């Protein structure tokens, strides 16, 4: 059998060696499969680990796709300096395209272009898909059957958010009926 201490060590080691964030279910059916564990107990173990690492250089955080250890926020600049070759910067055009997809997903390229007023470069769509932030989730049933794009959990993980609504500007879903929207705008502008 396994004692409490070993259990915690096992969960800790599993999260540190996993290739992607780990969910509670993955832990329960994976490394913990042979031990009688349940979600509430595992939550407790994770809480303890979070506490243990509170003052350390790395911390246990829960992101959209599970738990992972990541470096303390204030160490970013110093570490980026050491691993400088890996720090990318993203253009406003790319970020706007990404924000648009996050906000209106599932969305076609044509719809993105309509809002941004500019054609979306193939390179940007390619980069977003290569990074695993955006994927094609279907095709719109209109002539040409354009691809419908949506954001992924990897996108949420990268930008340290649990959900798109964590970005205040994008929290309000777009109104589906444009006609209704126009009316609302008119009445709103009348108010001011």
């Amino acid at each position: 059998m396994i004692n409490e201490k070993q259990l915690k060590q096992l969960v800790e080691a599993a999260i540190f060696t996993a290739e992607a964030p780990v969910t509670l279910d993955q832990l329960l059916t994976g490394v913990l499969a042979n031990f009688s564990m349940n979600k509430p107990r595992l939550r407790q173990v994770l809480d303890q680990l979070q506490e243990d690492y509170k003052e350390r250089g790395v911390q246990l955080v829960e992101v959209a796709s599970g738990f992972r250890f990541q470096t303390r926020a204030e160490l970013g600049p110093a570490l980026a300096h050491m691993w400088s070759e890996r720090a990318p910067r993203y253009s406003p055009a790319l970020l706007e395209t990404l924000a648009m997809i996050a906000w209106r997903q599932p969305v076609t390229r044509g719809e993105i272009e309509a809002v941004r007023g500019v054609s979306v470069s193939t390179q940007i769509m390619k980069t977003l898909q290569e990074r695993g932030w955006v994927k094609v989730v279907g095709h719109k049933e209109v002539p040409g059957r354009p691809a419908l794009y949506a954001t992924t959990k990897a996108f949420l993980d990268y930008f340290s958010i649990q959900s798109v609504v964590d970005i205040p500007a994008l929290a309000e879903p777009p109104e589906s009926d444009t006609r209704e929207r126009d009316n609302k705008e008119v009445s709103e502008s009348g108010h001011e």
Partner: protein
Amino acid sequence: MDNPEPTTVEAVEQGPSEQQSLPLGFVRGEPVLERPEDLYIPPEALEIMLEAFSGPMDLLLYLIRRQKMDILDLPILQITRQYMEYVELMRELKLELAADYLVMAAMLAEIKSRLLLPKAPSEDEEELDPRAELIRRLQAYEVVREGARQLDDQPQQYRDYFVASAATDARTWAEQAPPDVSLAELSLALSRVMQLVNVQAHHQIKREALSTRERMSRILEKLSQCARLDFVELFDLSEGKAGVVVSFLAILELNKEGLLVLTQAEAYSGIYISAKSEVSQPGEATLR
């Protein structure tokens, strides 16, 4: 880079006055600017500025903000004039201008002309405000632009945080579970094999309730465990007549293929079966 105004445009302007118009009025010599001393913009600066805008919507939004105007009462005449000045200047300087900027110019001109035309008598004129569509797009774009800015402010991997990982030798303990195979897959593979056989020899394959070939395997398997078997042990009466026939056919087939030996000490005594590799006892008759 998330906001073009402070980095590029203000560097170009150098003026303290916030309300001033954009210093682009010297285009075609027309004095449209309040501050003629700021007239000259180095082409490189304009090029940088152009790059700072992510597109015509971004430029338009910037112009509206500069005027401290509300998007909702879009001052279409002013905005169109300023926008056109920009576009003209870009063309004059032979900067590569994206077609999207010209599309927007055409749209603004169209709205402007519709506003200037005498209004047709209509009950719901607000519904027909030619600016409505542009206002709606500007509002949507503003959300996207702000969303992009907020996204960029979020902690980003490799910039603000790094994922921590540890090495492990646990993989050496890992056993890979074998792949799953469905009966359908196996059936498909069998069809392919049967087709190959069919091409080679025109066998008619008939369905049989019990496979003689499979029974041959079972008999050989038994023989590999004990050297000599009593003939009757190879029959399972619970299988009924068909089972007995299949077992008998299997024994004959194995005998024919030389895979087993049937021995009988004397007439009417017990028949024994052994694998061919087992050396038959001398003095015993071999049944063929």
